[in-house]
């Protein structure tokens, strides 16, 4: 369960406060994997970032007793100046691991990026970044209850997509995901429930199909 208590998020703009979320109060069940739906700029990534603690609500709180991952995506997560290995080491350490060798090895094996693993992340392609970021989140021997994924597997090649899907599916009975993806097909592979960003607020649907229908009714106006 993730509780939103009077949560607002706004950005100061030249024309005053631009609200992304306004006074959201809800209890989000976390017994099912959730696909987040909404048009560009509606605040899907912001939501994921706030749930992962990478950003803070402007007002109110987001509370949970679950073990939530950091937001996995292309934007944040990996540090450009550090190498892949150093990133892995750092993340393992802040999660309380002192012996990082096993984790390093696991990620290296999963990522399959060869000697680039010891090169700075800023030299990576998007796909290579995704491999390391994803491998890293999967490598912990304690499991996250909730994995926050923001458009991560959109960039991989076929091999990576198959591999990450298989790995994620294997973990699904313990770990649920909250996922942002513009491909409804991808969402349906992993998620049963849906969360729609609408009117600066959130609506939860037990069934992803209902969420997709509502999304289409609300946002997809260019019908043929």
């Amino acid at each position, binding site marked *: 369960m993730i509780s939103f208590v009077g949560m607002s998020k706004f950005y100061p703009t030249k024309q005053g406060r631009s609200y992304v979320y306004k006074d959201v109060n809800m209890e989000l069940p976390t017994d099912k994997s959730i696909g987040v739906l909404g048009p560009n700029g509606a605040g899907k990534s912001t939501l994921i970032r706030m749930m992962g603690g*990478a950003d*803070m609500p*402007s007002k109110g709180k987001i509370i949970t007793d679950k073990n939530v991952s950091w937001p996995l995506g292309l934007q944040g997560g990996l540090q450009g100046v550090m190498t892949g290995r150093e990133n892995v080491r750092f993340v393992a350490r802040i999660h309380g691991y002192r012996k990082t060798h096993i984790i390093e090895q696991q990620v290296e094996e999963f990522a399959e990026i060869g000697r680039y693993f010891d090169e700075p992340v800023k030299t990576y392609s998007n796909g290579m970044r995704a491999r390391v970021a994803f491998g890293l989140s999967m490598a912990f021997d304690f499991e996250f209850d909730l994995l926050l994924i923001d458009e991560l597997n959109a960039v991989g090649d076929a091999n990576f997509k198959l591999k990450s899907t298989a790995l994620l599916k294997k973990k699904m009975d313990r770990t649920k995901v909250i996922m942002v993806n513009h491909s409804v097909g991808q969402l349906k592979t992993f998620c049963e429930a849906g969360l729609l960003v609408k009117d600066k607020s959130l609506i939860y649907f037990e069934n992803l199909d209902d969420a997709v229908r509502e999304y289409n009714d609300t946002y997809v106006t260019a019908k043929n």
Partner: protein
Amino acid sequence: MARTSLQVMRDTVFALMMRELKTRFGARKLGYFWALAEPAAQALILSTIFTLVGRNTLTGVPVAIFMLSGILPYKFFSKLLPQLTASVHANRSLFAYRQVAPIDPLITRLFIEFATHIVVYVLIMSAMAWIGYDVWPEDLLSLLLATLLLTLIGTGLGLMLCSAMSHWEDTPKVLQMVMTPMFFVSGIFFCATMVPQQYWYLLTWNPIFHVTELSRDAYFASYTTPVGSWAFLMATALVTNALGLMLYQVNRQRFISA
């Protein structure tokens, strides 16, 4: 394996420290060497100058030791401030991990600079003892207290400068402009008794001057400072830290999202 907030902070500071040490000292092979060589060379130059103008002792203390007792704390302080100022900004992309709070990189750099200072101090003074100087401080505890207060003032100022930095990225340039003349008014190559009493007011506003004065008072049996004030230092430490933490609290969101 739920960790307490304090354990999370400890793990994070440890992770940041490993990272920082690697980039700081690992990148250049002579990293550790310069930490030692820079203050040592400065002390050498200053004491050579003063010896050449015909002085072997200042207030009954060998020139070299006198200079070192002023240069080392000043070097530490003038290194600490820019390091702390940039700490939050330099690590901002790591705040994507909620374990990393903006104050963690500041604490990390504080640890590193403080530890480096102590090591440099002990090593240089040991070298001086080896050459034949009497380097054992008269009142070690007071000397440590002066060092601690200097560190605390640096922390408070560092917190304020971090906030300034989040609003204005040119802060380090201004800091550098201020710190350059500070060298001349912090009592590094002179002490209060060498200055006519009517000019003391030009120096006593400066907490670093008090640190230098009180350090020498503690270090040398033959020197008693006429102006150094513990109360002033403690008040400065209190005020800077209160202001610094206040500004940190106000700007917390900016640190993370900027």
